């Protein structure tokens, strides 16, 4: 690659350069800069470089969905009445005309049927809420699988996790606001979860609902949470999340020219501003299409909430699905002591298990840091295969999530696949304990196999697909060396170090403090890293190169894929049909 030097001045003779009179835009910018002093800030940040990769844009889906949520949500607040006082519906949806219902539900019907564009806005709001949380999940998985959570980004990992939890809470509050049959059923479950807290459960429930469920204060309370408190927190945390992103600089994939000290990519202006801005419009477009074409949460069909009613197919939105699944497969365990009931059947699936699963994923980076003892900064990403245990852990967690998800939709599975509801329950009770470990084992071995394949590529080259027959009749496949850049990329990773306990006792022969923790650490370290395949050493590379020198020679100067005749005596013959051997 050569630099284009035609535009660089090559002489210092001639007249001195003078600034031209600024144009109109320049004058405005100058005026603003004199008062706001933004130029210094902008000069640096407009040229901020971001690396290019599709997986770096997953978080952006969440960001843009949040913007769409703010826009459509503001529209909805203009007509929504957060009140549980009862009135008789007289709007245009004839099937419910004359039915008594809460103002919240009536105003939701009003938005859906009597406000121009109201239904579109409602559906876009709901779809983008589903996409917002889904995008956060995908973004989180990307961060996890590539090791982007390592120092200095641990705090941002925690902020992201908080954002995810807040997003789910925000979604649930929004799901509950229209006061239709489905949202009321969801709130009833939430009420049950709260009441399952030992000792204080009923007090907490009465405090939240202002008395017995459903009461008449909950919707206004949820409304303030949904439109003010949680969005405010989300906004602040998203700001912090992105400031830290700018401060840390974005991580990048290893490759020639990419180090822990630099970022290779394109500047914010104009390239990334255009890409990100364009992406916003694409996200908006997809959300608008979904909102316009696909029905979501048809509240008019569910009817107003009535605690005596329930409908088949009552489900939460997808992100609450695993809590639903846990509840549905939980055996009916209860303990009665001194006239007090401890509802394990609700407490475990509702209050303990989801947070345990979430905590395991959030805590993994810290566990890994403790085991490796790695306090270095990392800006180069790891390929998932190069952290087999971590990748396998995530695969197991995704499997667990998927199983619980399916358990949450067990009635839909039963009707659509003609399975027995009871069999699904019994299957899931076992599967959530058995399947994830199997997935863990398979993924780990799979990753290690891929590592081995990488090493083979580095040492012995790539498979050309050319089958050669040797004079004695044996067949073998030709391998050709891979390029320098690919070889560099494949080997641009650090070797795993296995932690070992030096000595159980200190210099006085006394058991050293913290030995037990150190032993656990050593054991975990061995379990996590001992089976990994390490990249080839310099000697191994040298030996392999020496081994392949002859092939190298034949291949050098080739600017097209080898045809196979480079390796035989084809070129020495003057005709194609000369037989190889005379019989």
């Amino acid at each position, binding site marked *: 690659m050569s630099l284009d030097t035609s535009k660089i001045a090559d002489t210092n003779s001639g007249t001195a350069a003078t600034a031209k009179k600024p144009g109109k835009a320049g004058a405005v910018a100058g005026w603003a800069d004199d008062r706001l002093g933004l130029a210094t800030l902008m000069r640096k940040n407009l040229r901020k470089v971001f690396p290019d990769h599709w997986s770096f844009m997953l978080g952006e889906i969440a960001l843009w969905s949040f913007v769409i949520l703010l826009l459509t949500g503001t529209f909805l607040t203009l007509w929504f009445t957060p009140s549980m006082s009862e009135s008789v519906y007289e709007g245009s949806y004839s099937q*419910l005309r004359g039915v008594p219902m809460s103002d919240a539900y009536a105003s939701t019907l009003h938005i859906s049927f009597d406000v121009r564009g109201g239904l579109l806005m409602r559906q876009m709001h709901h779809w983008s809420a589903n996409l917002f949380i889904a995008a956060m999940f995908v973004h989180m998985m990307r961060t996890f699988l590539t090791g982007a959570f390592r120092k200095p980004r641990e705090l941002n990992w925690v902020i992201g996790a908080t954002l995810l939890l807040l997003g789910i809470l925000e979604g649930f509050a929004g799901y509950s606001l229209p006061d239709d049959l489905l949202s009321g059923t969801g709130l009833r479950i939430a009420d049950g979860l709260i009441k399952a807290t030992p000792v204080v459960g009923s007090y907490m429930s009465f405090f939240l609902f202002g008395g017995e469920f459903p009461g008449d204060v909950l919707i206004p309370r949820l409304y303030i949470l949904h439109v003010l408190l949680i969005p405010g927190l989300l906004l602040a945390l998203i700001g912090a999340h992105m400031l830290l992103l700018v401060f840390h600089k974005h991580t990048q994939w290893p490759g020639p020219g990419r180090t822990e000290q630099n970022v290779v990519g394109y500047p914010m202006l104009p390239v990334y501003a255009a890409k990100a801005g364009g992406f916003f419009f*694409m996200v908006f477009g997809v959300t608008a299409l*979904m909102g316009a074409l696909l029905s979501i949460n*048809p509240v008019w069909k569910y009817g107003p909430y009535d605690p005596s009613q329930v409908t*088949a197919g009552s*489900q*939460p939105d997808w992100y609450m699905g695993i809590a639903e699944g846990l509840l549905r497969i939980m055996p009916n365990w209860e303990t009665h002591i001194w006239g007090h009931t401890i509802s394990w059947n609700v407490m475990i699936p509702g209050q303990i298990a989801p947070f345990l699963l979430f905590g395991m994923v959030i805590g993994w980076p810290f566990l890994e840091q403790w085991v490796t003892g790695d306090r270095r900064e990392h800006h180069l990403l790891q390929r998932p295969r190069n952290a087999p245990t971590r990748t396998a852990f995530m695969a197991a967690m995704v499997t667990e999530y998927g199983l619980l998800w399916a358990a949450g939709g067990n009635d839909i599975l039963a009707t659509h696949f003609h399975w027995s509801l009871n069999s699904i329950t019994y299957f899931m009770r076992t599967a959530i304990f058995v399947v994830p470990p199997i997935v863990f084992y398979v993924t780990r071995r799979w990753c290690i196999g891929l590592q081995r394949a990488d090493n083979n590529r580095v040492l012995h080259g790539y498979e050309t697909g050319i089958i050669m027959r040797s004079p004695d009749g044996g067949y073998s496949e030709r391998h050709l060396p891979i390029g320098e850049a690919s070889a560099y990329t494949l080997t641009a990773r650090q070797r795993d170090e296995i932690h070992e306990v030096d000595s159980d006792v200190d210099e006085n022969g006394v058991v050293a403090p913290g030995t037990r923790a150190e032993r656990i650490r050593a054991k975990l370290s061995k379990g996590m890293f001992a089976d990994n395949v390490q990249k080839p050493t310099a000697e191994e590379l040298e030996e392999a190169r020496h081994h392949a020198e002859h092939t190298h020679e034949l291949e050098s100067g080739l600017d097209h894929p080898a045809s196979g005749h480079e390796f035989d005596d084809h070129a020495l013959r003057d005709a194609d049909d000369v037989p190889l051997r005379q019989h």
Partner: protein
Amino acid sequence: MRLLNRPLGRLSRYRRGPLAGLLVVLLGLLLTGGLYAAFSPASASEDNSAAQIKQGHQLFLVGCSFCHGNNGQGVKTLDGNQLGPALVGVGAAAVDFQVGTGRMPAVKPGPQVPQKEQAYTPDEIAALAAYVASLGPGPAIPTASDYSIDHMTDEQRQEAIVRGGAIFRTNCSACHNFEGSGGAMPNGGFAPKIRGVEPKYIFEAMLTGPQAMDNFSNGNLSVEEKQDIIAYLQSLQDNPDYGGFGLGGIGPVSEGVFAWLLGIGSLVGVATWIAAHTARSSKQKAES
């Protein structure tokens, strides 16, 4: 008093006559029969001529008796389970529903007998119904005046839809789902989809409570209330999907599937597309 007494007095002269006892018995029988006919639940008395019952019995012996017994008394398996329930008192309506929707004759025993093609002609179904009705009194096949909602004016129909919606959400949606899309029941059973079912069969299902379904007799849900439900189900069918493609009408599960597969799927595709198109600083092709 004399005026009143006179005719009776004259009549009473025959009270000890040879035919008097016979006449009184006859009158008493007529009165009892008439009163019974007037006040008893509508029974399948219209078409159950002896010939039809006989035809029905022949059909029954061939197609139904294996599970329901030669006389409709029901059959128990060796381990005490019910192979086919007794049909005494289920009425003609139950037969018309089960056979008319193709559920009976069943192909095999199982948690639930599914709907399939009708196996009998309407005449044969009527004969089977007449035979089963002759086993014991039960609900008769409803007439069009019972289940039809065509007689309603637009205004009446509108009111019926609103009432029917309320009754539906209270009594039906727990199993059949808010749109009548159906739902799961324990041990492989299911509440079938009831959108687009003929009004007669909806009425009969409520009247007779087939399989796992509860029985909503006319004393429980009146004929008018049943018509309200039929009107509501019809309105679900007639109304357009206001929100766009309905995703099967099964609630948030399919919404989640679409959010992930279509939404996140296409947006990841877009991200890949954007990331694959790197910027060029000039219009000239980069030289390598």
